[in-house]
């Protein structure tokens, strides 16, 4: 166990004189400024000496008040509850940073994202292809810079630089971005021998909406309706992460009743998504029976959501400082949830007793623990590959520190493991809802916010149903949002799908993809 003192010592030892303004904030956060030349040493010190991982990199345009760009590196330990936020400056003219791409795979993707959105060059990057950049954007257009206004776009006519696989008998299957089902757009390019997949490259960002930019200039309370719509199936997850970051920034403590109600809301969201996806996975094996029943149970849960919060998708239930409304009286929510869960368990039993279904799930789309760790995979995808992380336990928020629950972890990393982890999590969700409602303390539902201190970074991690959601934000001198960085688990998880697919056959791709079920909207932002 590292304490904050030993981490600061490690920083001072590894970066003598190059890590400045080191300070502790909110009991478990270390904030510091790091010299641009010391980025690789910073990464080495925190990852090797302290065992932390790079969770997020945030680009920030501070040219107006600081005369340059600023890149924040957010580190967290997987099991210990502390964070390090290191700010690295980059000049306004010809901005560049030292790339971590050869040390850390997630960093290489954050750096590509930051280049496409801010034009900050990652020097020494091993793979500087565009990530977010749409083919239509002009070369000098970096949309998250403060001075980037509306521009007229036209097709640059060049194809997207996909990795090509050559050789006799190898052919490409392009799929998407428009699909047969009612799903979001994404382009998948398979290189195939016969039916066996030897490579798959995905291209996203067709639904890039400028979500992060839309937050800028809003008052903190006005960010909620936007946060609710970052990814339609993760309303509570994203809104909670946003509200907690605001609360952390403004230094308010949420009243206990609101903290417990937030647990209930987050678990309701997890439950309906897990139930629906179990049905979808079964449907992709052709077992439509489980699909129609899981959708019936999902509908049951959505109606419970409506009774509990007034919205089937749990919208409009959270505000910075607490929750909007109490649960209605004379409503046995825990009992209703348990009865829906029992219904679900029966369908699960029937489905998994079917040898033809399990034959499709077993050994399909295997993601090894090594690949998962290298990609920084989070959430149930990681837990199915033996990566034992859960922000509810490791970085407790809301009332999770006071409640008992298990974190299911499996080793095999195949579609079956991902499915079983979610079935087990659904059970834990029902237990958590029961516990939270039984211990529900009396008291107010929300507290007013204090003024947000200007240009101070704040962040929050929430374990949404897909995995750890991170919101990082900063307010300006007027107390309005200056920069909001959102990380949906999809950003790190999507990419590992190509590795899980290797040596699988083409007709098994939809099943692997469904077992991941990542968000396009949350990834593309």
């Amino acid at each position, binding site marked *: 166990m590292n304490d904050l003192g030993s981490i600061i010592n490690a920083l001072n030892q590894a970066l003598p004189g190059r890590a400045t303004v080191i300070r502790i904030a909110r009991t478990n956060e270390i904030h510091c400024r790091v010299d641009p030349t010391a980025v690789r040493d910073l990464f080495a010190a925190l990852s090797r000496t302290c065992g932390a991982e790079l969770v997020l990199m945030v680009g920030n345009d501070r040219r107006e008040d600081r005369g340059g760009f600023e890149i924040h590196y957010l580190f967290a330990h997987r099991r210990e509850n502390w964070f390090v936020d290191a700010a690295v400056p980059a000049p306004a003219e010809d901005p560049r940073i030292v790339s971590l791409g050869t040390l850390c795979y997630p960093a290489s993707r954050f750096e590509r994202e930051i280049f496409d959105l801010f034009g900050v060059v990652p020097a020494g990057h091993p793979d500087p292809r565009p990530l977010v950049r749409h083919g239509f954007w002009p070369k000098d257009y970096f949309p998250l810079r403060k001075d980037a206004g509306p521009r007229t776009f036209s097709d640059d006519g060049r194809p997207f630089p996909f990795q090509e696989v050559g050789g006799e008998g190898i052919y490409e*299957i392009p799929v998407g971005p428009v699909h047969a089902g009612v799903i979001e757009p994404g382009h998948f390019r398979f290189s195939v021998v016969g039916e066996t997949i030897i490579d798959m490259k995905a291209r996203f960002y067709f639904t890039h909406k400028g979500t992060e930019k839309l937050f800028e200039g809003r008052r903190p309370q006005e960010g909620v309706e936007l946060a609710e719509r970052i990814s339609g199936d993760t309303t509570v997850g994203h809104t909670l992460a946003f509200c907690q970051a605001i609360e952390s920034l403004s230094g308010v403590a949420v009243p206990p009743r609101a903290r417990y109600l937030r647990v209930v809301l987050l678990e309701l969201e997890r439950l309906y998504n897990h139930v629906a996806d179990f049905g979808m996975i079964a449907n992709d094996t052709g077992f*439509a029976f489980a699909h129609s029943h899981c959708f019936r149970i999902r509908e049951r849960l959505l109606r419970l959501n409506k009774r509990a919060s007034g919205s089937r998708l749990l919208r409009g239930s959270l505000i910075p400082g607490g929750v909007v409304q109490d649960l209605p009286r004379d409503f046995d929510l825990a009992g209703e949830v348990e009865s829906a869960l029992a219904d679900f368990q029966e369908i699960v039993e029937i489905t998994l007793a079917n040898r033809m279904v399990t034959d499709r799930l077993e050994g399909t789309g295997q993601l090894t623990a090594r690949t998962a760790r290298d990609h920084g995979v989070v959430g149930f995808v990681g837990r199915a590959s033996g990566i034992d992380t859960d922000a509810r336990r490791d970085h407790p928020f809301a009332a999770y520190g006071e409640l008992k629950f298990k974190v299911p972890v499996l080793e095999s990393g195949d579609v079956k493991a991902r499915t079983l982890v979610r079935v087990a999590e659904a059970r834990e969700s029902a237990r958590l809802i029961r516990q939270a409602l039984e211990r529900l303390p009396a008291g107010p539902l929300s507290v007013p916010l204090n003024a947000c201190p200007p240009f101070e970074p704040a962040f929050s991690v929430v374990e949404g149903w897909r995995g750890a959601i991170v919101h990082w934000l900063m307010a300006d001198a007027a107390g309005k949002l200056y920069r909001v960085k959102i990380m949906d688990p999809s950003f790190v998880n999507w990419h590992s799908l190509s590795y899980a697919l290797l040596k699988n*056959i083409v007709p098994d791709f939809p099943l692997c993809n469904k077992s991941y079920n990542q968000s396009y909207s949350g990834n593309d932002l």
Partner: protein
Amino acid sequence: MSAWFVEIFQVVFVVALAPGLVGLIRWIKARLQSRLGAPPGQPYRELGKLFHKEAVVSKNASWIFRFAPYAVSASTLAIAFLVPVLVVPRRLDMVGDLFVVVYLLLLGTFWLALAGLDPGSAFGGMGSSREVTVAALAEPTTATAIFSLALGAGSTNLGAIVAAALNDPWTVLTPGHLLAFAALFIVAIAETGRLPVDNPSTHLELTMIHEAMILEYSGRYLALLEWAAWLKLFVFLSLLANLFFPWGIATTLTPGALSWAIVTLLVKLALLAVVIAVMETRVAKLRLFRVPELLTASFVLALLAITSSFLLR
């Protein structure tokens, strides 16, 4: 009643009822999954809709793409003329026997596979490659299984086989007959694109076989291809019904015998529809590379059928 009138009537009957049979299977399946389901008449509405819609054809498609729907539906229609559905013996028994039926089926598959390849889309090519794999494995089973029945009846003529079974009902319970039924049932599932070989209700292009080949079709072309596929299912099921449970089929051309034949056939088809719907609800789709194992098993059954028919003759 004129013998020729009966021949024409049979084809009209089969063509008219084929969409209803598929609708019935879909409706039973929906009921088994606790869904309300579309009424069994829904496929007729789908056909009506498709015939009124514009047919969009890719610029890259050649004449093969336009011709294939006609070739496929014509070959399936020809089978509808040759298979004993309501009456034995028939005038058209002279025109074609079981070998003609098997290769007419393959002719349709051949044109469909070409049409899948023709517009050059990735999904069509994938569907064609899979369909040809399945067809190559299913074809010998069909021929062998029916041949084992022919061995018992002493003729490859389908009408004669049915008539022979009708004269001596106990042959239906011989091992050769039972094994051949199992083999033909599996082949019927594979050839008509039902679960667990192919999923007729999926929207996932990458997993499709039959649907992938017709993915580029629209309007009247799609209507013809859908109708032909339903017709194929109807013919396969009537063949199963009449070869193995021939009771009720008319042997004279009196109106009474014909009405009784229609009633018994409808009952038999409804029973088979229930069997297929129950099976499709209980199974999942096989992993593609397990399909050859299933078809090999069906071929072994057919081989055993023909061996036992030969030995017990």
